[in-house]
Structure formats: C-alpha cells, structure tokens
C-alpha cells in the first residue's frame, strides 16, 4: 500500500527544493558571516544584526513596510472577500463578466503599469504621496489574490450547510457569520498572509507611489544595494524571511486552535 520512493522522485524533489531554497539558505548563512566581505566566510557572528539595531533608517523603513503590509493586507482581505462572495453568490448579475475581469486584471497586469496608473491617479487628485498612497496601491495590487483564494474555497463550499442552518432557524446574516465564515476562515487567512507577503516585498509599485518620509524596506534595500551589497542587507532579509515564515505557521496554528475551541464550546452544551 505504501507509496514507493523511487530514486527519480527523490532526486526531482531535492532538485526542486534546492532551486527554491538554495539562494535563500545562502543568504541566511551569509547574514551570520563575521567578515565584512560578502564573498568571504569569516566565521559565525551576529555583527550585522547588531549593526542593524543602530541603523535608524533601516529600522524606520522596516516599520513602515510592516505597517503598510498589515493595513493593505487587511483592507484587501475585506474587499477581496466581498468581491469573491459577489462573484460566487450573486448569480448572473448584469456586468458579472466585466466585474470579474476587472477584479482579476491586476493579477496579470505588469506591475509597472499598475504603479504608473495609480501614480497618475494620485497626481491627478493632488494627494500627498507617502504611507497612505502606498497602502492604497498595495490594496489594489493584492485584492485580486485574496479574491482568487477565497473564491476557489466558496465554489467548493456545500451550500446545503447554509440551508441547513437557516432551516434550523438561523437568519441569513447570522448563518454567514456562524457557518460560512468559520468554514472559509482558513482561505481568508491564507489570502491575508499572501497579501501581506506581496506588500512586504513589493518594490515597483511602492517606488511609484512613495513620497518623502515613506521609504519601505525594499526601496531602502534596493537603494543601498546599488552602492554595493553590505552584509547588513543579508541580516535584514533574513529577518523578513523569519517574519513571513512565522506568520504562515502562526496562521495555520490559529486556524487549528479555533477549530478545537469551537469543539470544546459545543461539548459544554452536552454536559
């Protein structure tokens, strides 16, 4: 019954993983490099992390990036989930095709174009560019990813669950909150995580929509790297990787804990 692990499978998995993770592993290892030269191994050390702590500009940029990512991911999750519900639940309303096309367009739109068009909008509206404009632009960018993830979950969602809840006396809105939402929550969380990561790592759109006093981490890193790769950059990137990884693990753990809590609540009814 057990699946055979042929040499071919092992090799292809190893190659795939290496392709994905080797550059990252090298970056992480070099962030602990004691040497000032990026290409020379000088023993393990935390020098560059310590240097980072006193790099005010870098810390500010990281903080700005995190705030923008959290804000835009949250906004994109709310709007993207609403769009997904409208697309799956409202049937064939007039302009549905146009609406779905418009929601999905940023998915394939070159970022340069998205960035430029958003910039033109902000210029036309004469708003000061900075934290808020980047957040709005990132919401535009990430919304469609949330919609895709949530919509695919909603399509496979068994509508009879909602009907059963209503049949048992649960009004429609409460049905959505107590039945639909908990069941699609993992998809929504996954959408948020993806939006957060996309925002955190975006350089193109942020460059177009940024203004004085709002430098995100990728912008900062990019401008520093142009003057030569400093080991400090490796340290920053390692921290970013750690945050994204932690976020992913945390969201899956949260989803699991939520399920357990719901179960315990149901148990108390029985006792």
């Amino acid at each position, binding site marked *: 019954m057990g699946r055979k692990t042929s040499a071919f499978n092992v090799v292809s998995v190893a190659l795939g993983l290496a392709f994905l993770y080797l550059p990252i592993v090298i970056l992480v290892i070099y962030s602990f490099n004691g040497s000032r030269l990026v290409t020379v191994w000088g023993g393990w050390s935390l020098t560059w992390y310590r240097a980072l702590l006193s790099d005010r500009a870098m810390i500010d940029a990281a903080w700005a990036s995190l705030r923008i990512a959290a804000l835009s991911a949250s906004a994109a999750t709310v709007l993207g989930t609403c769009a997904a519900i409208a697309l799956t639940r409202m049937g064939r309303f007039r302009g549905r095709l146009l609406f779905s096309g418009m929601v999905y367009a940023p998915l394939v739109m070159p970022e340069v174009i998205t960035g430029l068009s958003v910039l033109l909008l902000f210029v036309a509206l004469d708003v000061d560019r900075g934290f808020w404009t980047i957040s709005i632009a990132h919401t535009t960018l990430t919304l469609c990813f949330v919609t895709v993830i949530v919509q695919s979950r909603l399509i496979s969602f068994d509508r009879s669950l909602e009907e059963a809840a*209503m049949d048992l006396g649960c009004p429609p809105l409460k049905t959505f909150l107590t039945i639909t939402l908990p069941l699609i929550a993992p998809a929504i969380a996954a959408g948020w995580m993806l939006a957060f990561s996309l925002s955190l790592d975006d350089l193109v759109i942020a460059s177009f929509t940024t203004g004085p006093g709002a430098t995100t981490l990728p912008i900062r890193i990019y401008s520093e790297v142009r003057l030569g790769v400093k080991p400090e950059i490796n340290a920053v990137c390692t921290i970013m990787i750690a945050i994204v990884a932690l976020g992913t693990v945390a969201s899956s753990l949260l989803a699991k804990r939520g399920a357990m809590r719901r179960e315990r609540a149901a148990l108390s009814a029985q006792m």
Partner: protein
Amino acid sequence: MADAATQGQTAGDTPLLRFEGIGKRFGPVVAVEAFTLDIGQGEFFALLGPSGCGKTTLLRMLAGFETPSEGRILLDGDDIVAVPPHRRPVNMMFQSYALFPHLSVAGNIAFGLRQEKAGKAEIAERVTEMLALVRMPDFGRRRVDQLSGGQRQRVALARALIKRPRVLLLDEPMAALDKKLRAETQFELMELQRKLGTTFVIVTHDQDEAMIVADRIAVMEHGRLAQVAAPSEIYERPNSRWVADFIGEVTLIEGMLADGAIETGLGRFRAAIPSGGKKRDTAWLALRPEKLRIDAQRPTGGELNAVAGTVFEIGYRGDMSIYKVRLADRSLMKVALANTSARGQASFGIDDLVWLSWPPEAGWVLTR
C-alpha cells in the same frame, strides 16, 4: 385531478399541509406543475417518482428554499410562501445530511435550539434526549468526520427533530446507506414517527422504500401528481399504466372493453370494468406476476381466465423465481412462483408448455 378520488383517503377536515396549484419553473424547465395535495397531521407521507420528476423541488418549496412560480402552500390554513426558511416550523433532513463540520455531534444537534435562545440547561437536556432517541447516547463529543454513514444519518435526524417541527422533511434519507442498513433504518424511522406523532414527508425514488414506510404515497410523473393513495391501493389499483408500471412488476395486455370482460388479441378475459368505461374503449389489463397461477394443464374452474404459452426465461431470486412466458402473440408475461418446495409446487424448465390462469378479480383494467 385533485378530487377526492385521486387523493385517496382524505386526511381529516383541515389538512396540516396543503399544496394548492403549485407550479415551479426554472427558466424553460418545468420542475413542478399544477400540483395539488393535502397532507394530514401525523401522517408518514411519501413523495415517490423517478429521478428528476420534481420531488426535491417540492420539498425545497416546503422548506422555503425555492419560491413557487404559482400556487399556495398552506400550513394549518396559513399561506407560508412568503415566510423565509428560518421562520418556518418545518425542519429538513438533507440528502447529503449537511452536518456542520466545525461543530461536534452535540453542537450540531443543539444548533436549532441555540437559535431560539434556549437556556443552557434546556439545550443540554434536549440534546441528551435526542442522542438517546437516535440511539447514540455516547457520541455527543465526537467530531462529525469521525462518524460512519449510518451514524451521520442519525445525527442529521436528531438535529432536524430537536425543534419539534410541525413537519419533518426527509430528502432521500437512506440513499447513501447500504441495503441492509437501509432496511433497518426504514423500520427505525417508522417506529420513531409513531412514537413522536410528527408528520413526516419523505422524498424517495425507491418504490419499495415508499411502500414500506409510508401511510400514503403521492406518485409523481414529470412534475405532476399521478396518483395519491395508500401503498396497497397504489399497488392493487393504480390509476394509469404509468403508475402500474412504475410500482412493481406488471404485465399489460391491450384490448377493448366489453361486458364484464376485456377483449384482447389473446382472447376474452373476465375482469371488473371501471365505472366510467364505455364498451369498445381501448383499455389495458394489468396483471401482477404473483397473482398468476402456472400449471402444466389448463386449470378447470368456470370463472378462471387462462392463456397458454411456453417458458422463455427463468430468473431465480432465491425466495421466488420469475418466469417469463411467451404467449401466442409473442408477447411475454411475467409470473412469480414462490420457491416453497414443501408446498409441492411444480417447477418448469425452458420451452415447457404451460398454462397461466387468474381469477377475474386478480386483473385490473386501466383506461389510460
């Protein structure tokens, strides 16, 4: 269609439930048409018909998930068409069971009461009571995905019954169970219905199931009501060839009405003629396989109808064998013979010459 005759035994003065000229279209598809039916308090009622005939649509209109294109649905005399599903005093057991995967068994069963803002103690008590009722007292803490198909079915039943609905709707409740479990569940369901006295409306495409569980059956054909009556009435006195053929095995012989008989290509057979029937009208004699005798010689007996043929095929079923006998006009007639060798019944082989006979009251004449 909707007169007392098609309705079978009428159900009390004010019916609990009344469909009045219900029609439902999905775009060009007519799912239900001119459907009128009364269901009485405490009945175990079955909607029976081939798949796609509109049974589920009818049930969903009763639960409030579909709005009729025309007609009224009365519950205790009040039109409920405009009442949303969550305010209707009927509960439904879904074909897929639709158990909430994020709730435990107890959480699922308690769901309906929670919506009524019932007290914690009352909920706990009623959940325990329902678990006992479906004979799963120790399963409250289980997760839904840890249950077998039969157990899920019981949980779905308990969840639908906890609010003590005026009518319990069951959509193909046993379709997902294996044959043995289905038979057990059918009897449990009947016992439960007797104990609670709740009106059950079950939807099924399985005629055996409908005959076993239901007090009355409505047979549906293409969204229309074909016949409503007690199971024995539908089996013994179907009102059309379609119903006769849909319910159980039957041989239909075409002929013309005559005086106390029907003239067919195989001869003149004595039978009771339907009251409205005129002489020379086209009619069909319906014969159930188990009502026929099979003998090697022409049986004697003045009233008996008899016809000769040769055995064409024998289907052995364990408890009985179905003989297909080829008659003079090359048509086949089905005869069931119980395999009770103790009774000394003769058995026959392929190509044996046999006589089939039946008393006049064993045949049933249909005019459509």
